[in-house]
Structures are given as C-alpha cells and as structure tokens.
C-alpha cells in the first residue's frame, strides 16, 4: 500500500491542474472535481493508516532529484521522496479528512461567489502542499512544500483581495512567515553543512550520536524558528488572528489541518534534533506555554466570533508546543489530532452562523438556538471538547498534556496549563451564551444552512466526541493498542488516567463554564461593570497587548530610518558621484563648444594671431 503514498498529494495537485486548465468556467464541476479527488486522497490515507496500524514499519522511497558534483565528488544531492511512518500516516489522515469536509462545506458556503472555481483550485493546491510536506523524507523537500503552504495561505487569506483588510492580512501572514522561514532555511543549510544530509533518517542516525553540543543548540533554535512562524508562536503570532479575513472555511483549514499544523508537525518530525539539546526543549516548552496563556487572555474580551476562535487556536497551539517541549511527542500530536476535529468544527460552525446572520460581532447575534439547531448544538459540542469536558476528545488530549507536563517536572507550566484550561472554558462559553443563546440582539433573519454545510458539522461533531477515546485505557484493553503505543518517540506508553490531574483540569474547565454562565447567561455580575472596574487590563487585552502597534511602530520607524539612510547613500553619495562626473563632462563640453563656431574667418583670425605671436616670440 505504501507504494501508492505518493498519490495522496498528487490527487489534489491533479484536481488543481484540472480546475485551472479545464473546468474553470464550470463552477459546480470544479467543486465536484476538488471534493472527489480529495476524497480519493482520504481513502488512500485511511488505507495507509490501517496498514500502518497492522505493521508500524517505516517505509521510505526516494529518487535523487538533483545531484551536483565537483571534482568527480558528489557535493550535494537533493532527494524527492516519501517517508511513511505512523506520524505521517496520522497527519495524512487529518489533513485529507479536514480538507475533504471543508471542500464539501465550501460548496454551500461559497455559493454565488465570483471566484468559486479559483477557491477550489487554491484549496486543492493548499492540500497538495500540506500533504507533500507531511510525506516528505528530507528537510529540503519539506522546505519547498513549506513555502508552498505559505504561498497558498497568502492566496487564500487574500482570496477577497479587493477588500483592503484581506489584502493586508495576506501580506502580513506572508511577511511574518518569511521572517521565520529565513531562520528555518539557515537552520537546514546549517544541518547540511554540519551533518552532510537533508534526509530525516540519515540525520536521525547522525544526530543521535551528539548530545547537547553548541552546534546542535544553534541549529535547533534556527530550525525551530520555522515552526514558530507557521504555528504562530509568540512573537510571530500576529498573522493568525488577521488570517480570518479569508473565507471562513479557509480559517477552518488553516487553523485545523494545514498551515499551523505544519509547524507542530515539523517539530514532531525533526524531534530528534530538538530532543538532543535540553535547552532547546525548554525554550520550546516555555514559548508554547507563554503563547497558550497570552492568547487565552486576549480571547477573553474579543467581540468578533472568528477572532475569538483564532486566539483560541493560538492558545491551543501553545499547548501542543508545550507538550512537545516538555518531551512528549505523543501528547502534542494527540492534541493536534483532536484539536483539528473540534477546531474545524468550531470554525465551520462559526462560518454557518456568519452565513446566516451576516455579521461577525457576537453581540449582534443571540437567539440562534431555535433558528439553526444543528449548527448551534454541534458548536456546543465543539466548545465542550475544546474546554476539555469528559468524555469528549479535548478532555483526553488536554489531560495527557497536563500529565506529561507534571511528569517531566514542569510544575510552573502545569499550573499555567490548568489556568489556560479555565480561561478556555470561560471564553468559549462567553461566546456561546452571548452569540447562540439568550435574546436576539439584532434584527437578523438566521436560518439553518444547507446539507452540504451541516453534514461536515455533524461528522466533525461525532469525531470531536469519539476521537479522544483512541488514547484511553479502555480502548487499549479492548484493542491492545492506542494512540500512544502507535505514535511515539523512543518508548511507547500505555495510556493511564491520572484521576487527580483529570479532576483538577475538569474542575478548572467547569469553573470557567460556571463563571461564564453567571456573568453572561444569568447576568448576576455585570460584564460592563467588570470591564469598567479593570479598565486598564481590559483595554490592554482588547488591543491584544499592543503587539501589533509595537511591531508597526518598530518596523515603521526602523524601516523608514533605514530607508532614509539608504536613500541618502544611494541618492546623495552614489548618484552624486556619477551625476557629478557627468555634469562635469557636460559643462566642459558646453564651454569647449564655444571655440568651435564653424566660422572660417574666426579660425583664420586665430591662425594669424598665433602665427604673429609665434613670429614675434621667435624674433625676440
């Protein structure tokens, strides 16, 4: 089965080419091509995953795409190939599944849009890029697809490019990622220079022999810059909240399966590199933990439904990074998997709501539960899963992360994680109580969406409920295996429930829901008064800690200052020298021209005067 793995990314690529070349004019046909090809990839991904479960042996196939020789010695070999191990198999499934559901959903959501075919072409290209990255067997190929993912996110965030905000957001996403990718590129070039290979398998063998060396520390931090940009870790997080300017299904795709998952996936893929240096792991853990808390606090006060979800994604990505950083690849990837389901569900649900209400401000919604029950109840399931309520998917993965954090003696991060669990539950249920329940707050005519939009919601809701079960002791007892015995770094773990930790995090989540219920549903405590009371903090959070403004200021001042210096060098010094030379020659010419009048008699006069002068001179 593995020999067909290359077909998984190739099918979406084929869909992209077919739409661009043939079916661009036929909108529905384009959508059908994109969805069915993606479904084909999904079926392949499922069969490969089943095969991996039966026989978890890593298979690698590659061709030498480019070989450069100097003095009869091979100095550089670039490979193109695929590496299928449990990690790649799980990731392929997530990406193809989310992509297929998003494509199906988009048929309803994008109905009547001018760029309907273009949209489906881009998503196919996006899926192709992400899958190419997932099955890649070396850093170089990863980098190529990494950039393609960046390009596609640019195209899709700026899908409605005629809106200035969308155009700006797409540029912001692309440029922020460029900064991070620069470090990544330097890092992989460094890896090649030091260890002589881009290949993951070869590198793992070599890096395994080194521990805690300075070179590995530097390279690890440089390579980690790439995932920081793609997964929107602080301080590269600024692009993700703005990325919601694209169509909502795109946000679902970016937030759940493709763009931001790429960063987490790369850390997991190159785990041996990071795990070989303790301080790099600590950096990863604390950046993740900080981002989790940082984003969760911002989400508390936002009004835009997509913005709340975007900050929630940031926060959950922080969780995953933290899990990877404390040394548990399994829990990080497990949370990525469950998060993909419920975050896609939440975004698609939000899309359905926006589609119905034509507004993104949660204070203009309200009273939706009777109008669109499927959307509302699936949204509630997604929120419960995100908050980590037993027995939904989020509970298991969040519990797993908190457990490993404590096991690896990161007590500070454990407390932080529990706090974030409380905040997460609070802001999600603030959103639910304001936007979905309660009274109608504006004159909207909400209605349930069509079946192409609700079917993905239902599928994702079911997955959000059951996906967590694959890493429970019961599942292990029943089937003899679980997520953590399938996908792991070094040692497989048998899932265990730590009731005290689970109880604590559940208590935090329920506490968050309870506080949200008191403030926003029962209104025992006035939210406005709270905002008034903590005015400074509220303003700070509402403005996202002024990070955007800070960056704007730094880059504006810095760039303009630098620009002025270069402008001076270019226009005054360099141009001055060359222009001055030219001016000198020109003015000399103008002066010399006066001597050449073309009047014979003048010449003759000069001639005679000269002869007379010479004669007189000679006589004397």
């Amino acid at each position, binding site marked *: 089965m593995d020999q067909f793995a290359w077909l998984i990314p190739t099918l979406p690529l084929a869909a992209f080419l077919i739409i661009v070349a043939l079916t661009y004019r036929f909108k529905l046909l384009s959508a059908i091509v994109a969805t069915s090809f993606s479904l084909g990839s999904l079926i392949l991904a499922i069969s490969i995953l089943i095969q991996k479960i039966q026989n978890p042996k890593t298979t690698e196939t590659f061709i030498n795409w480019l070989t450069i020789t100097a003095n009869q010695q091979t100095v550089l070999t670039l490979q193109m190939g695929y590496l299928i191990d449990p990690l790649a198999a799980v990731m392929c499934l997530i990406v193809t599944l989310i992509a297929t559901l998003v494509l199906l959903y988009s048929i309803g959501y994008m109905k009547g849009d001018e760029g309907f075919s273009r949209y489906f072409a881009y998503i196919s290209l996006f899926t192709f890029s992400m899958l190419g990255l997932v099955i890649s067997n070396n850093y170089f190929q990863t980098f190529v697809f990494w950039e393609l993912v960046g390009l596609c996110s640019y195209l899709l965030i700026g899908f409605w490019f005629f809106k200035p905000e969308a155009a700006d957001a797409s540029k912001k996403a692309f440029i922020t990622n460029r900064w991070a990718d620069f470090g990544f590129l330097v890092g992989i070039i460094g890896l090649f220079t030091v260890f002589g290979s881009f290949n993951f398998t070869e590198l793992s063998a070599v890096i395994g022999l080194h521990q805690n060396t300075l070179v590995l520390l530097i390279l690890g931090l440089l390579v980690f810059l790439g995932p920081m940009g793609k997964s929107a870790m602080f301080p590269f997080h600024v692009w993700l909240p703005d990325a919601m300017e694209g169509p909502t299904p795109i946000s679902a795709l970016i937030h759940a399966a493709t763009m931001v998952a790429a960063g987490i996936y790369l850390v997991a893929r190159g785990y041996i590199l990071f795990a070989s240096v303790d301080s790099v792991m600590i950096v990863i853990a604390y950046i993740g933990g900080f981002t989790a808390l940082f984003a969760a606090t911002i989400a508390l006060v936002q009004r835009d439904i997509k913005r709340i979800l975007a900050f929630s994604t940031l926060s959950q990505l922080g969780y995953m990074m933290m899990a990877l950083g404390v040394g548990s690849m399994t829990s990080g990837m497990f949370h990525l998997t469950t998060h993909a389901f419920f975050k896609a569900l939440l975004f698609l649900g939000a899309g359905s709501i926006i589609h119905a209400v034509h507004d993104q401000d949660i204070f203009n919604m309200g009273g939706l539960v009777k109008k669109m029950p499927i959307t509302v109840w699936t949204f509630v399931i997604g929120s419960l899963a995100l908050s980590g309520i037993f027995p939904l998917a989020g509970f298991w993965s969040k519990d797993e992360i908190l457990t490993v954090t404590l096991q690896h003696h990161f007590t500070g991060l454990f407390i932080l994680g529990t706090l974030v669990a409380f905040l997460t539950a609070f802001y999600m249920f603030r959103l639910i109580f304001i936007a979905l329940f309660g009274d109608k707050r504006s004159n909207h005519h909400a209605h349930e969406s069509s079946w192409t939009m609700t079917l993905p919601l239902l599928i994702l809701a079911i997955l959000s409920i059951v996906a967590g079960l694959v890493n429970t002791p019961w599942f292990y007892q029943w089937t003899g295996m679980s997520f953590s015995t399938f996908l792991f770094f070094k040692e497989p773990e048998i899932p265990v429930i730590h009731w005290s930790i689970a109880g604590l995090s559940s208590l935090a989540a329920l506490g968050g829901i309870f506080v949200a219920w008191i403030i926003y549903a029962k209104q025992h405590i006035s939210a406005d008064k709270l905002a008034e009371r903590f005015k400074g903090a509220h303003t700070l959070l509402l403005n996202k800690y002024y990070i955007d403004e800070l960056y704007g200021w730094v880059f504006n001042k810095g760039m303009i200052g630098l620009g002025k210096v270069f402008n001076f060098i270019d226009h005054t010094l360099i141009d001055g020298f060359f222009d001055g030379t030219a001016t000198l020659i020109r003015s000399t010419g103008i002066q010399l021209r006066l001597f*050449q*009048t*073309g*009047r*014979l*008699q003048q010449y*003759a*006069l000069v001639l*005679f005067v000269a002869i007379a002068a010479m004669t007189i001179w000679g006589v004397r």
Partner: protein
Amino acid sequence: MIGLSHYLFVAAALFCIGVYGVLTKKNAIAVVMGIEFMLNAVNINLIAFNHFMAPNHVIGQLFAIFIIGVAAAEVSLGLAIILSLYRQRHLVAIDEMDILKW
C-alpha cells in the same frame, strides 16, 4: 634710392591688407582676393631678397613663379568651390557657410 626695406615695407603693407581682407570680408570672392594679396606680398619679398641679397642667383624668382602658378590653381579651385556653393545654396557670404560646424 629705393632699398630693400622699401620693398619689404610695401610687401608687409600688402600682406596686412590681404589679412584684413581675409578676416573681415563677407564676400567669398573678396576673401579669395585677400589671399591673392598675401601671396603677391610674399612674391614681392622673394624678388626683393633675390635682387638685393643674391643677385647672381635666380632662385627667388623661381619661387615667385612657382607661387604664381600655385596661386592660379588655387584661385581656380576656390572659385569653382564658390560657384558650386552658389549653385547649391545661393550664397557667397562666407559667414553663412557653417555647415562644417556639425
């Protein structure tokens, strides 16, 4: 008694008249006439020097005859140029003949 210096004085005066004519006249024919003046001033010098300094030789006279010959050729050539210029561009004024400037 008329001596060498008288001849030289006449020749110098004639030469200066010629130079003046060449430099100031607008008419190309007058310029050619000025050149003739200058040539003949030189001829007078040659004959005078020949007569007073080396009366037994004819070399000065020989040169003078050569110059007369060359002058005749030069004048005929000059007049031909002036004529053809006149035919082409209807001008004999020398200050308008500036097409060589470019």
